[in-house]
């Protein structure tokens, strides 16, 4: 009963969707203000989801019907699970389990895998271009992020969220050291790519692929995807807060706002990169920086 409450209401589905959709609004509003526009009202995210639920769902002839509907729901369910695990540990409502940080990071990958499934079965050529880009992007940002996660876990001595937070409570936050600052910068770009935002919005590429991988989604199926993306916009900064800050709700909220500001500014000041540039960037510079941070962490600076 308690677990179901955690999963569905607080801090799971309802709480995370409300915060996530408000964050989507914040993102669009700040982007609009950066461009000297007025921007949408605060309920825009909710209106979009409601509207999509009202509309008809069209399933392409080539697609495998029930899979086409189930895949985004799988994605949504796993993102909610990831956020629940994160928040339950953050608000000290439960102990967590060994290895949960790895589980959470891969639960966040499931929406992308669901999209790859949908895009490749939808029979649309532009979608399949988007699929190939999504797979390459998934492989490229995973490497630096895994280096960072392993580094933080070996600092704390265990792959559990609780022990990473406890370690920081005793020894000071990771972000107050040089290795923390470098790996924080790397992690910001990794989650920017994971969220599929400009400059790494290659799989969707509104202008060149006509929303690529999402092209054949309509109505409720698209709503499930949009909702899981909104929840990820809450969950992934939360993930960084746990890795780099670790304690305190007030500090957490401030860091959350800082991360959002950085994500929005990166989005508004960069053009879209090419996929080979993105791969070179993540496997070269970003992984290099992550390894450098690892060396610094070994010496404790």
């Amino acid at each position, binding site marked *: 009963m308690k677990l179901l409450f955690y999963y569905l209401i607080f801090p799971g589905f309802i709480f995370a969707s409300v915060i996530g959709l408000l964050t989507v609004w914040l993102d669009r509003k700040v982007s*609009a203000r950066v461009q000297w526009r*007025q921007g949408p009202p605060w309920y825009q995210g909710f209106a979009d989801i*409601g*509207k999509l639920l009202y*509309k008809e*769902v069209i399933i392409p002839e080539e697609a495998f019907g029930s899979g086409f509907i189930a895949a985004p729901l799988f994605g949504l369910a796993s993102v909610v699970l990831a956020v629940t695990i994160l928040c339950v540990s953050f608000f000290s409502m439960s102990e967590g389990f060994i290895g949960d940080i790895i589980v959470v990071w891969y639960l966040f990958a499931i929406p992308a895998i669901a999209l790859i499934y949908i895009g490749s079965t939808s029979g649309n050529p532009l979608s399949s271009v988007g699929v190939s880009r999504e797979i390459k992007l998934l492989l490229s940002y995973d490497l630096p992020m895994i280096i960072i996660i392993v580094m933080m876990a070996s600092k704390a001595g265990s792959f559990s969220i609780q022990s990473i937070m406890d370690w920081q409570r005793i020894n000071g936050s990771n972000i107050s050291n040089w290795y923390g600052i470098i790996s924080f910068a790397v992690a910001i770009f990794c989650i920017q790519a994971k969220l599929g935002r400009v400059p790494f919005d290659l799989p969707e590429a509104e202008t060149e692929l*006509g929303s690529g991988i999402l*092209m054949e989604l*309509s109505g409720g199926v698209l709503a499930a995807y949009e909702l899981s993306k909104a929840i990820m916009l809450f969950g992934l900064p939360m993930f960084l807060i746990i890795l780099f800050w670790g304690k305190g709700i007030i500090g957490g909220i401030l860091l959350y706002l800082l991360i959002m500001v950085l994500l929005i500014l990166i989005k508004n000041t960069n053009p879209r990169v090419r996929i080979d540039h993105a791969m070179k960037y993540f496997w070269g510079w970003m992984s290099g920086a992550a390894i450098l941070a690892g060396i610094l962490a070994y010496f404790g600076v």
Partner: protein
Amino acid sequence: MDILKKSFKKSIWVFHLSTAACNNCDIEVLELLTPRYDVERFGIKLVGSPRHADALLVCGSVNAHAKPRLLEVYRQTPKPCLVVAFGSCGCSSGIFRDSYSIVGPLDKVLKEEDPDVKIVYIPGCPPKPEAMIEGIVMGLGAI
């Protein structure tokens, strides 16, 4: 259901389709996204795929070449959807009316496909941005 219907009016995603317009209307559409007219205030945004669209913004007198494409896109759009006949050409084929290649106007073509299609007419050559915003708002009132 009521709240979902209401949210439909607060979030209109538009797919822009050009069926043999003179290109001036297409340029004018972009004006709606500029800081001065900023339609994102009303939740309106341009999308890249007809599957996501709630409104089809069709510019231009329909010619024989564009007609099958127009019908294809209309069939691909999930219903309920609104069609905006944009500019004099969209409303009545405009100055191209007597040309040999024209099979329009738009409403005639679409009504052959779907008799209860909802069309909003925004006249003008090209219409002013204020007229476009008013047209879309009135169209939403009629849904």
